[in-house]
């Protein structure tokens, strides 16, 4: 655990704490910070906060974690990593510790199972806020957690709920909560190797108007011309690759792969001039969705009208109930009941866009296991690679093949 600030005048403990909060700390940041201290830039705790943040937080997505770390280290206030309206707070150690203390201090009385959850959550945040307002740096009221008698089992949500990823990935018609994760949300990026592999996709091809002066050619032509100037223009190099990205973001089976998918998605966004992204659940029927929440449907037929040269990357685990691929009523969406099979749509996509590839977050060596049957059926249509550096390199080769 972290040493109290008094024994740590240079805040070294804080820098280590930041790493626990997922904020990368670089030695240069520390040196700059100390240089600033020497210049007298920090005169009070507000300036300390601003200056520390300026030196250490380089991305907006780390901002919240930094503030929580700061509150914890300097004010002894432990804020859970959740939004205020998130009922998940019930499962955090901060909440459970607070509850334990509140009961011990007789602030809350009566049988715990009769208590209104909303009320409890509200009270918890109120207490936190009061502490922040007081700026008292008072007694730390949240310890290191540990076994609490008030586990989440006692407070489970009523209704049908899927707990944890299923052992078998084949889930017919998801019931209850659907877990769509907004892949576009910006999380900390790593894995520059994906970027390198994807750079291969950016094949430069001359296009556009000949507007760039070719100096070497001009000089040599002019020389040949006996000094009479002859200007030679070259075509501007411009990247013309457009990419259609289809992401499977529905159902529990994709959840374990969420982080990887998001990573790839962000990288792709970075690399291309034109990138269209659509979402689907398990496999593709007559419509896909323009948003991660599946609320803006787009006809698959429309996608098929995109230029033939569009590179298509489909991202999904290709694991589902066999029915979903081959039955005309296989779709998970009730409104899709009368339609062509998914296999039909997949073949149409492949037919239209010869430069297409299926990327699977399941590593190749596991392809024989869960959901393998549908996976191999889809492989008969699309080239499939896994989401490893090698897999992506191979995928790029497929995409670069001339139609």
């Amino acid at each position, binding site marked *: 655990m972290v040493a109290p600030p008094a024994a740590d005048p240079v805040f070294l403990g804080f820098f280590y704490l930041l790493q626990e909060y997922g904020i990368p700390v*670089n030695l*240069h940041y520390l040196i*700059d910070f100390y*240089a*600033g201290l020497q*210049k007298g*830039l920090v005169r009070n705790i507000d*300036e300390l906060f*601003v*200056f520390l943040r*300026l*030196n250490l*937080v*380089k*991305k*907006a997505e780390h*901002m919240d974690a930094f503030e929580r770390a700061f509150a914890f280290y300097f004010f002894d206030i432990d804020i859970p990593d959740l939004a205020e309206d998130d009922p998940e707070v019930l499962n955090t150690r901060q909440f459970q510790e607070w509850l334990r203390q509140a009961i011990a201090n007789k602030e809350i009385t009566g049988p715990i199972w009769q208590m209104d959850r909303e009320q409890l959550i509200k009270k918890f945040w109120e207490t936190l806020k009061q502490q922040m307002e007081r700026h008292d740096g008072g007694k730390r009221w949240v310890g290191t957690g540990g076994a609490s008698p008030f586990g989440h089992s006692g407070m489970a949500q009523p209704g049908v709920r899927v707990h944890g990823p299923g052992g078998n990935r084949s889930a017919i018609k998801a019931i209850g909560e659907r877990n*769509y994760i907004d892949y576009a949300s910006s999380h900390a*990026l790593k894995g520059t190797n994906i970027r390198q592999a994807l750079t291969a996709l950016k094949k430069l091809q001359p296009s556009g108007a000949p507007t760039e*002066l070719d*100096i070497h050619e*001009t*000089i040599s032509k*002019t020389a040949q011309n006996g*000094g*009479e*100037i002859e*200007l030679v223009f070259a075509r501007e190099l411009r990247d013309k690759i457009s990419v259609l990205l289809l992401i499977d973001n529905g159902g529990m089976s994709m959840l374990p792969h969420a982080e990887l998918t998001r990573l790839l998605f*962000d990288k792709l*966004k*970075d690399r291309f001039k034109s990138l269209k992204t659509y979402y689907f659940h398990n496999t593709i029927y007559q419509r896909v969705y323009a*948003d991660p*929440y599946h*609320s*803006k449907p787009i006809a698959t037929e429309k996608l098929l009208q995109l230029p033939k040269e569009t590179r298509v990357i489909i991202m999904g685990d290709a694991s589902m109930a066999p029915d979903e691929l081959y039955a005309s009523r296989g779709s998970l969406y009730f409104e899709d009941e009368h339609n062509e099979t998914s296999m039909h749509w997949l073949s149409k996509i492949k037919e239209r866009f010869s430069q297409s590839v299926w990327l699977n977050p399941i590593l190749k060596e596991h392809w024989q296991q869960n959901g393998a049957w549908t996976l191999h059926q889809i492989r008969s249509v699309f080239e499939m690679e896994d989401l490893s550096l090698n897999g992506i390199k191979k995928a790029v080769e497929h995409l670069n093949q001339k139609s």
Partner: protein
Amino acid sequence: MEFQGTDNYYLNPELQSIVNMAIQMEKPLLLTGEPGTGKTQLAFEISRSLGMPLEILRAKSTIKGEETCYVQDTVLRLNDARFGGADTGRDVNQFFDYIIWGPIGRAFRSEERVVLLLDEIDKTESDVQDNLLDVLDEKQFTIREINQVIQAKLPPLILITSNAKRELSDPFLRRCFCHHLAFPSREEMIEIVKLHFAELDAKLLDTALNIFYELRARGFEKAPATSELLDWLQALKSSETDLQVPDQIPFLGALLKRTEDILSFRNGKQQPGSRW
């Protein structure tokens, strides 16, 4: 040297101390945030408040890096060589007569300390960004053709803005002080509006801000920002329109720019701002 706000720019105290810290530490200050948060404007205000000239590099995706320092006008030189440039004051044998300095070149060669703004740096390729930062870090660049190093006479005060259309590379971020500008709160917005409209009816402003922040919360494709609000207020003021009619927003086009947004507003459709 201490930066303070000016008459027509609202500066919140935190941002003020951030700017001053960056000046003291001689670090490039990278400002991110959505359009309309006053990123670019800040550079203008710093330049005005400190009385330092401003050099602006407006980034484009085609920038390769070198031209931000200098460009050699080969065509002109070729032309002078062929037809003679005696009466132009240029000498074909003088390399520097055919150099056009870019914003960084001008900033480095300036006799006084300047504010150097790299606007919308995220539009450039990431290797270009890294090259630029090398130049800014070392405060020097080399003119390749004659292998001559141009050293900054006085280190410029560097401001960089980014709309975060693309991720900036980690080495780039590492060398900057980064600050994310949040969208102005209601109270701050009132301060900003006051700077532009000295006497605006308090009631009108109140209603206008209600509508403005409500529209922003609806999650339109292009949410209205500060400049839209100011345009809209100007329109309301000039036409002396009353805002008291419910469910009707005059000059909607000043606030919402995209057709889809306007249509979805008219249809009163709920935008998927929340998850379900």
